C-alpha cells in the first residue's frame, strides 16, 4: 500500500489497518493510554500497600502543600523539600494547586501519560524517516519498556523524567519545522528544572547536526545557555541555595567548556547509519550519569538514568534500516526485555512491602487532620496535601513542637530514617515523660509528644 507522508514523500508504510504493529491514529493513542493505565494501576496499588524503599513523592507532596498554604519560603528549610527547591523547577508551582484538588493519584496518572506520549513522538519520527511501521512500533515499545522510565513512575515520582518524553516531542517538532510546538516544548522543559538542562543541550547538538533542523538546534542551544545563565544570575527565580548533586555551575561548565569539543566529536558521526551521532549523545548521557553519581545510578532500574531512554531510542530509530533487517531478533529482544521487567516488578514491587500496612492505616486514621505528623517518608504521602500543617520526616534539624504526632514503623527503613534515628525515636516513645502512646500494634507505633523536642535528642 503506497501512501504519502506529510512532507510529500511517497512511502510504503501502509494504511495502518493490516497489522498489529501498523497501528492507526486511534490505536496509537490507545497504546499510550494502555501504558498509562497499567503504570497508573501498579503505582496506585503500590502506594496503597505502602510498598517502598525511598519515596520522593512525599517530598513533592510536602512541597505542593507548602506552596498551596502560602509558605514557599519553608521549601528550603524542610528536609524533605530542600532538594526539590534547588532544582529551580517552576512546574511544581503549577502542579501544587492541581494536586491539592485532584489528589496524589493525579500525579501517577499524569506522569504515566506524559512519559507514554513520548512513544507517539518516537513513532512519528520513525514515520518521518520512512522506517517500516513495524520497526517504529518496536522501538517505541522498547522506549516505553525502558525500566528506568517505569521505575520512575511506579516506584517513585520524579517530574524530571517527563523530559524524556518532552525531548522526543521537541525533536519531532523540529523535524516537522513547527516553531510553535518546538517553542512550547522548549519552555516546558525549563519547568522541569536544572536536571534536564544537559539533556536539552545535547538534543540541541543532535538537531544541529541533523541536516534539516540546523536552526532548531541552534535555537535550542542558545535558549538553553541563555535561560540557565540568567537563572544562575538569579534573574529568573530568586537565588536559592544549591544542594542538589548536579549544580548549576557544573551545567554551565558543561555548556561553555565541553560544548565545542562535543559538537566537533559528534560531527564525525553525522550520518544516518548504524553508527549515527545519536549513539554518541546517548554515550554522553551515560557518562554524565556515572560522573554525577555512581555506577549504580546508571542502572536502568533507577530513575537517574531515565534521560538515557530518549537518546537511546533516537539512536535506534536512526539506525532503523539496519534494525528492521533483524526484525525477529528485535522482537525476541523486546520479549526478553518484557520478561526482565516482569521479574524486576516482582522483585522490587512486592518484596519490600511492609507486612503491617493495615496497622499503619489504622494508626494514620487516629491522627487528627490539622495536627503535625512526623513519620517515615513513605508513610507521609498517605496524609493528603490539604492538611494545614505539613509533616516533616524523622530527619530534622528543627525543634519539633509539643503535641506533634509521631508514627513509626521501625521494621521498614525508607532510606531517610536510619536505624539509630529510629531507635532514638523508639526510646522517646517508651518514655512516659516525653510522650503518650496512642496506638501500638504489629510493630507500628503512634505517639504524641508531651514536650517540644530539640534536634540533639535524636542524635542528629
Amino acid at each position, binding site marked *: 500500500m503506497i501512501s504519502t507522508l506529510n512532507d510529500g514523500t511517497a512511502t510504503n508504510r501502509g494504511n495502518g*489497518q493490516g497489522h498489529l504493529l501498523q497501528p*492507526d491514529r*486511534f490505536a496509537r493513542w*490507545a497504546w499510550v*493510554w494502555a501504558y498509562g493505565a497499567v503504570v497508573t494501576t501498579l503505582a496506585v496499588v503500590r502506594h*496503597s500497600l505502602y510498598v517502598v524503599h525511598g519515596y520522593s513523592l512525599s517530598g513533592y507532596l510536602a512541597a505542593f502543600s507548602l506552596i498551596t498554604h502560602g509558605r514557599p519560603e519553608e521549601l528550603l528549610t524542610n528536609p524533605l523539600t530542600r532538594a526539590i527547591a534547588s532544582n529551580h523547577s517552576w512546574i511544581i508551582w503549577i502542579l501544587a494547586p492541581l494536586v491539592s484538588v485532584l489528589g496524589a*493519584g493525579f500525579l501517577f496518572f499524569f506522569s504515566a501519560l506524559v512519559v507514554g506520549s513520548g512513544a507517539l513522538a518516537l513513532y512519528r519520527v520513525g514515520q518521518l524517516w520512512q522506517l517500516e511501521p513495524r520497526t517504529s512500533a518496536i522501538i517505541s515499545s522498547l522506549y516505553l519498556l525502558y525500566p528506568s522510565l517505569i521505575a520512575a513512575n511506579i516506584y517513585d515520582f520524579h517530574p524530571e523524567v517527563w523530559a524524556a518524553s518532552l525531548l522526543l516531542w521537541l525533536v519531532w517538532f523540529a523535524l516537522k519545522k513547527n516553531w510553535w510546538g518546538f517553542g512550547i516544548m522548549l519552555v516546558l522543559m525549563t519547568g522541569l528544572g536544572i536536571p534536564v538542562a544537559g539533556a536539552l543541550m545535547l538534543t540541541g547538538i543532535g538537531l544541529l547536526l541533523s541536516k534539516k533542523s540546523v536552526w532548531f538546534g541552534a535555537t535550542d542551544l542558545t535558549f538553553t545557555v541563555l535561560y540557565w545563565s540568567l537563572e544562575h544570575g538569579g534573574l529568573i527565580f530568586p537565588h536559592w541555595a544549591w544542594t542538589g548533586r548536579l549544580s548549576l555551575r557544573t551545567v554551565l561548565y558543561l555548556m561553555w567548556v565541553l560544548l565545542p569539543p562535543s559538537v566537533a566529536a559528534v560531527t564525525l558521526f553525522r550520518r544516518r547509519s548504524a553508527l549515527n551521532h545519536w549513539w554518541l549523545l546517548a554515550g554522553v548521557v551515560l557518562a554524565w550519569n556515572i560522573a554525577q553519581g555512581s555506577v549504580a545510578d546508571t542502572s536502568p532500574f533507577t530513575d537517574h538514568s531515565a534521560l538515557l531512554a530518549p537518546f537511546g531510542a533516537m539512536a535506534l530509530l536512526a539506525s532503523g534500516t539496519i534494525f528492521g533487517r533483524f526484525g525477529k531478533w528485535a522482537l525476541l529482544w523486546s520479549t526478553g526485555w518484557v520478561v526482565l521487567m516482569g521479574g524486576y516488578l516482582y522483585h522490587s514491587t512486592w518484596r519490600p512491602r511492609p507486612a503491617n500496612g493495615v496497622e499503619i492505616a489504622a494508626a494514620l486514621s487516629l491522627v487528627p487532620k490539622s495536627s503535625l505528623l512526623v513519620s517515615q517518608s513513605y508513610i507521609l504521602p498517605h496524609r493528603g496535601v490539604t492538611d494545614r500543617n505539613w509533616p516533616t520526616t524523622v530527619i530534622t534539624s528543627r525543634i519539633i513542637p509539643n503535641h506533634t504526632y509521631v508514627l513509626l514503623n521501625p521494621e521498614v527503613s525508607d532510606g531517610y530514617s536510619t536505624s539509630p534515628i529510629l531507635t532514638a525515636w523508639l526510646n522517646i516513645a517508651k518514655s512516659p515523660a516525653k510522650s503518650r502512646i496512642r496506638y501500638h500494634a504489629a510493630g507500628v507505633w503512634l505517639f504524641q509528644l508531651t514536650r517540644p523536642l530539640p534536634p540533639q535528642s535524636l542524635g542528629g
Partner: protein
Amino acid sequence: MVHNASTSTIRRWEWWNRLAKRLQGAGLWVELTRNLASRDVETRYKHSLLGLYWAIINPLVTAAIFGFVFGVIFHVSTKPIPYVVFYLGGLTFWNFFANGVMSAVGSVSGNAALLAKIYFPRIVLPTAAVLARFIDFLFSLGVLVVFILLYRVPVHWTSLWIPGILMIQVFFTLGIGYMVAALNVLYRDVTQLMGLLLMVWLYFSPVMYRLSGHPQSLQIILLINPVGAMIEVERNVIFTGHVLHPEYLWVAIAWTGFVFLGGIALFKRVEPLFAEVM
C-alpha cells in the same frame, strides 16, 4: 517572499475550510446519533402498557428483592445508610453500564437492513444504543432521589461531582460498547458471553456489598476494576461526602481512556468487514 506569504495564507484558509467542514459533518452525525437514541427509547416502550414507567419499575423491583434478601434475611449492615438506598445507589449506576453494553452488543448486527440502505459512520449505532440507555438511567436516578428523600438520608454537597464521574462512566461504557458491537458482527457468541461476563463483573463490583470491612488485598482487587471504583466513588460522594480511595478514580480514568480509544480503534479495524459478514 510574496509567493511564500500568499501560499501560507492559502494554506491557512484551507485549514479553516477543512475544520469548518469537519465540524459541519460532526454536527450531522451528532444529530443522527441523537435521533437514533430517541428512536431506540421510543420503540423500546412503544407498544407496552406502562411505557417509560418500565425504566423506573425495573430498578424498583430489583432493589426491593435485594433489599429484602440482603437487608431482611441476611441482615447485611450498611449503617447509617438503609440497605435499600445503599443498594439502589450502586445498582442505578451499574445498570447504566450493563444495559448500555448489552444494548451496544447487537446495535450493529441488529441493523443490517439500515446498513445496507444508507452510508453513515457505523460507530453511530453503538453510540446511540449507549445514549438511549443513558436516558433510561436518568429515570432510574429519579427513583434513587425519591428513595433518598423517603428514608431521609443526608446527601452531601460533594454529589456535585456526580456529573463528572458519570462522564467517565459514559466513555467507559462507550468504549466497551464499541468493542463488543464490532466483535459481535464477527462472532455472535459475544452476546451470550457478555451476559455471563457482566454477571461475574457485577459480583466483582461493590454494588451489593460495602467495600470496607473486607481484607485490604480484596479491596484493591475490587477497586482496580474501573466500574467498581466508579461506583464506589459515586456512592461516596453522595452518602459520605468524602472519597475513601480517590487514587483509584485515576486508575479508572486511565483505563477509560484506553478502553474508549481502543474501542474506536477496534471498531474501525473491523468496520470494513461488516458488509462482507452481514
